[in-house]
C-alpha cells in the first residue's frame, strides 16, 4: 500500500499530515492497536483467532466498544486536544457502526493501524475520517486514561 493509495482511500490524508510507521501486517487490526496490542485482532466475535475482552457483549456497537475500553481504564471525554500524561482514543463510525479506532501518541499526534495494512501516524484524529465510501467516517466516541508508559 503506497502513500498515493492511502491518499486516494482517505480523503483527508495528504502528503503533509501522515507518515507510514510500520510494514504491512495482517495479524492485528486497528482496535487491537488502539488497545496497545499487535499480535491479534480485536473484534466482538467468537471467531477463533480474534479477541474480545471477556464479559463484554459481542455486538459491533459504539456502546459495546466503550465498555471494552472501559475495561482498559479509559473513560469517556469530549476533548480531543493533547494533554500531557493523558492517553486518548477515538472511535470512528460509519452508518452507525464502528469502523476504526485511533490512539493519541504522547507528542500529540495520532496513530492508526489501517486494516491489514500499515500503521501510520497522523496529525489530527480526524485525518483518517471521511464519508461517501472513503475514510472511516466520523468520530463518535473519545475516551481517555492516564498515560501509563510510552505506548507509541
Amino acid at each position, binding site marked *: 500500500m503506497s502513500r498515493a493509495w492511502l491518499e486516494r482511500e482517505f480523503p483527508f490524508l495528504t502528503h503533509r499530515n501522515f507518515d507510514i510507521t510500520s510494514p504491512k501486517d*495482517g495479524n492485528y487490526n486497528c482496535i487491537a492497536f488502539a488497545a496497545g496490542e499487535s499480535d491479534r485482532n480485536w473484534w466482538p*466475535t467468537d471467531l477463533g483467532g*480474534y479477541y474480545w475482552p471477556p464479559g463484554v457483549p459481542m455486538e459491533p456497537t459504539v456502546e459495546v466498544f466503550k465498555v471494552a475500553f472501559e475495561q482498559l481504564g479509559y473513560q469517556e471525554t469530549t476533548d480531543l486536544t493533547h494533554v500531557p500524561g493523558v492517553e486518548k482514543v477515538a472511535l470512528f463510525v460509519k452508518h452507525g457502526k464502528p469502523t476504526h479506532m485511533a490512539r493519541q501518541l504522547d507528542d500529540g499526534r495520532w496513530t492508526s493501524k489501517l486494516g491489514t495494512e500499515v500503521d501510520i501516524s497522523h496529525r489530527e484524529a480526524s485525518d483518517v475520517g471521511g464519508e461517501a465510501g472513503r475514510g472511516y467516517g466520523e468520530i463518535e466516541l473519545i475516551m481517555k486514561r492516564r498515560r501509563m508508559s510510552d505506548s507509541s
Partner: protein
Amino acid sequence: MAIADRPASAGFPSQQGASSGLAKISELVAPWSSPLAEVRGQQPAVGKLIKHDWLAYGPDIQIEQVRPEAMVIVQLGSEFPDLASRDNTAQLFLELAEVWENEVAHLSTLEEIVQRPEYQRIIRLGDMVIPLIFDRFKYGAPKWFWALRSIAGYDAARDARTSAEATAMWKDWGAQQGYLTSS
C-alpha cells in the same frame, strides 16, 4: 480455427504461421454449462488468461501461438471434467480473492469484510478452495478464518490466543485433513 482435444491447462497445439507467446482471451462465446466452450483469441499478447467468470481454465494456462483474430475451440467437460472443474475453480478463486483483498485491505470491520460478495462467493465454492486459502495466508491469514470456519463447519482456532496461534492451528487442521502436505 483450431480444435484442441486436450484440457485447457495442457495448452494448445501450435498453429501454423502463428506468432509466439501467450494469447489473451477476451471473449467467451459459449457458457461453461456447455460441453463446448468457445473462446476468441485476439491479438497475441504475453500474459495470463484473465477476464472470465465461470470459464474453465486454470491460472497456469498457456495458449501458445494463436494467430491474431484466430478462433479457438476447446473441448471441455467430457474427457477431463475434474481437471477442468478444478482449474476453473482455482482461477475463479484467484480473481475473487484479489478483488476482495484489495477492497478490504484498509478495513477492520469484520462484518463488512466477510459480507463482501466476492468473499461469500469464495465460501460457496466449498472445500475445493481450502488449499488455495492456505496459500493466501502469506498475504494475511486472519481475514480467512471466517471462510475456513464457514466451509469446514468447524473452528480449528477456537482456543487461539493470537493470530499466529490461530494460523498454526488452521494449518495443523489442514494437514490433518489432507488439504496441506505439511503444516
